[in-house]
């Protein structure tokens, strides 16, 4: 792309473009330039790296899964919708089996057809270690995000069957994380590294230019199967820009139209300068995971865990962040259907917090000493240093003596994958890490089931609650939506009341954009839909 970088200079360019068009035709959607927080262009093979930000930008716009997110509405939590599969059903006799009926007439960007063979080929890419298209990093990610693919087979040209190791009612919720790339294009290019230079998926955008570390250009896919969702934009150019100050300068100088995560302190001045700040609101906890396995952990007593949740001045923290986060008092938000009715209503209540600490044998002379591992930066971590410094001061008043183990993001990831008692945890009593958004029960199961205790799974806290495990088991086996919702509420109530985490804030996914960006709907999700956007 060679669009000009100043606001002033771009006027004549737009004018010449407009002149080239027939007078009657609606103005073309234009080019949207976005600065991402990633430090490199996420992998363009359909298995994006750079965490879920990679999935947001180089996942769904270009590649699709059997199941997708419904990102149309800003009013309710994003749910799943049919994607490359038109519909699916759980085998009534054997609940471990799911049948997916694939959408007909879907073509990859290279013109080849999406069918059951292509679907199976992609499952082999992620799960079959000796397949020639097996993609080690992509496979590792897919297997972690969806560890429940035990077997799969083609039934006919447009039907496939996937088998789970145990009945799992929420299995379809885990499918949007697995995206499908073109086997024909892979054959043509020969390897994933080469495929990355000329990628081909089924999504509303095609990748038309890829410059490593610099940018990637997505263009409208005129032949997109869902006619209602053919993008309005001509092009979308994505730039990796890890430095917040650089992103800010790029937006303000007119080099990009949209930046992800503006620094909170820049928000008022951006508003003054006429930029829009768009935030979402959905469950995405930024917690302290409390180490319950450590021998001398103060958190073993549930009263101390509840006390910290009462002592946190969440509103103060939100002020610090200029409203770019919102208080979190559970894994879901109080307005969500899944929230339930927990007994504990956390809020800033130091009196109650101190009373609980006193019951647990702590007091002004004997503060709760805890060391929290925090990272200097990292995906979804917001501003870990000032935020934690604020909490440290805030909790001191209540009787918590918090110290920090400041580590780099990479070191924290190592610690997360090992047991909380392992040397990699560096003796920490808690870890401040923001994991993928918990928008459905499938995520909560991964975080809190005792069978997923680290190092085996994502339950770093090593929290174990028999009732919770039983409720999840019931949910997995059930197929009645009402029953599932009721049990999800119960599961969430237990998480809140037992407090294996200090729930601090929800990330609001702030982004700043110029007023020229029109038609963007901020869905209640980490992911967003770019097909409705156009440029004025």
């Amino acid at each position, binding site marked *: 792309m060679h669009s000009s970088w100043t606001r002033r200079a771009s006027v004549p360019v737009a004018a010449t473009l407009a002149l080239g068009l027939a007078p009657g035709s609606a103005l073309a959607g234009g080019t949207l330039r976005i600065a991402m927080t990633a430090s490199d262009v996420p992998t363009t093979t359909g298995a994006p790296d750079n965490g879920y930000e990679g999935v947001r930008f180089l996942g769904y716009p270009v590649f699709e899964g059997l199941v997708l997110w419904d990102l149309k509405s800003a009013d309710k939590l994003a749910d799943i919708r049919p994607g490359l599969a038109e519909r699916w059903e759980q085998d009534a006799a054997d609940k471990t089996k799911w049948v997916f009926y694939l959408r007909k007439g879907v073509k990859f960007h290279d013109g080849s057809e999406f069918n059951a063979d292509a679907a199976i080929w992609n499952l082999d890419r992620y799960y079959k270690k000796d397949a020639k298209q097996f993609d080690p990093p992509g496979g590792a990610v897919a297997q972690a995000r969806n560890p429940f693919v035990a077997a799969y087979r083609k039934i006919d040209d447009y039907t496939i069957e996937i088998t789970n190791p145990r009945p799992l009612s929420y299995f379809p919720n885990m499918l949007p994380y697995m995206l499908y790339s073109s086997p024909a294009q892979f054959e043509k290019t020969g390897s994933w590294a080469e495929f990355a230079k000329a990628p081909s998926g089924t999504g509303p955008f095609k990748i038309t230019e890829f410059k490593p570390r610099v940018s990637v250009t997505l263009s409208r896919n005129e032949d997109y199967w869902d006619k209602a969702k053919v993008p309005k934009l001509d092009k979308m150019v994505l730039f990796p820009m890890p430095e917040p100050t650089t992103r800010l300068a790029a937006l303000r100088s007119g080099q990009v139209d949209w930046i992800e995560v503006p*620094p909170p*302190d*820049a928000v008022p001045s951006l508003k003054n300068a006429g930029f829009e700040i768009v935030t979402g609101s959905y469950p995405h906890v930024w917690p302290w995971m409390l180490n319950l396995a450590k021998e001398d952990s103060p958190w073993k007593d549930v009263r101390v865990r509840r006390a910290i949740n009462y002592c946190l001045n969440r509103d103060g923290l939100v002020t*610090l962040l200029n409203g770019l986060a919102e208080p979190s008092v559970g894994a879901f938000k109080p307005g969500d259907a899944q929230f339930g009715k927990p007994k504990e209503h956390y809020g800033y209540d130091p009196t109650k917090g101190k009373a609980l600490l006193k019951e647990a044998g702590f007091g002004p002379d004997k503060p709760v000493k805890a060391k929290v591992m925090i990272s200097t930066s990292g995906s979804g971590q917001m501003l870990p240093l000032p935020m934690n*410094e604020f909490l440290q001061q805030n909790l001191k008043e209540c009787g918590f003596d918090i110290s920090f183990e*400041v580590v780099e993001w990479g*070191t924290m990831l190592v610690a997360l994958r090992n047991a909380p008692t392992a040397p990699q945890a560096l003796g920490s009593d808690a870890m401040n890490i923001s994991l993928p958004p918990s928008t459905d029960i499938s995520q909560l199961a991964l975080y809190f089931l005792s069978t997923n205790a680290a190092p085996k799974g994502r339950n770093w806290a090593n929290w174990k609650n028999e009732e919770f495990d039983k409720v999840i088991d019931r949910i997995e086996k059930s197929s009645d939506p009402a029953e599932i919702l009721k049990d999800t509420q119960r599961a969430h109530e237990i998480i809140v009341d037992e407090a294996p985490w200090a729930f601090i804030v929800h990330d609001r996914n702030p982004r700043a954009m110029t007023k020229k960006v029109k038609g963007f709907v901020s869905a209640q999700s980490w992911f967003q839909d770019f097909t409705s956007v156009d440029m004025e």
Partner: protein
Amino acid sequence: MEDSATLAADPAMALKRAQQGKSYWRRVWERLREDKVTLAVIAVLGMLLIMVVFAPWFTIHDPYAGSVLRRLKPVGTPGHWLGTDEVGRDLWSRMLYGGRLSLLAGVAPVFLALLIGGFLGILAGYAGGLLNSAVMRLTDVLYAFPSILLAIAITGILGAGLQNTILALTISFIPPIIRISESVTTQVRHLDFVEAARASGARRLTIMRYHILSNVLGPILVYATSLISICIILAAGLSFLGLGVTPPSAEWGLMLNNLRQGIWASPLVAALPGVMIFITSMCFNLMSDGLRQAMDVRL
């Protein structure tokens, strides 16, 4: 950066220095006393040092206590005359306390490098032969990295923190100091009076102590002072990349990095740490210039 090497590389000067003996240092001192700029700069640095070391006497606010209610207050706010930072901490307190770590990270590596590099360099220069080759060839390996590259590689890999910063910068400054010390020592060693001392049967250690040390230390010291300014900038640069001192410590480079995002909310406050780094680094540069001039016997 390397320009003081020219001072060391002139054998005639070393000889002159040597011949002048003790009166040389007296003359240096006299010349220094007349150099008003250098004296002023030394006074400023001295004042800075006092204020930084005795920071509690000059501040009322705790540099680590903040409040969200008074974040990023501008310069001139009552009670916080330099304003407050992004967590609402008093900037004046943080500047003074921050000077402790910044000066430490600026001076300690140079000092350590001077001890280690100076020792190795003088040893190599005096002993010559195999020992010289061994030390100098190892130095060449380290010297193949531009110093900032080496420092970034070390802190990037070993992790952030004050200790690693000091370690990394020390390692980056050792090779140039070894080179300078070796070349000065080699030159002085071959001067007539040292040869004469050796011929008259003086013990090696005595020669080392009296003749070489007294004639070699000056140029190395001048060179080392010129490194302090670079070291302060590099240490702050490491913090800027997130590889230096870790929060919540007060340190100028880290403050610069954290306040950067407030550049539109409170530009003056955001600029202050950068200004402090600049002023301090310039003072050290001027001081080093003054020392060099005073020690230059030709003038």
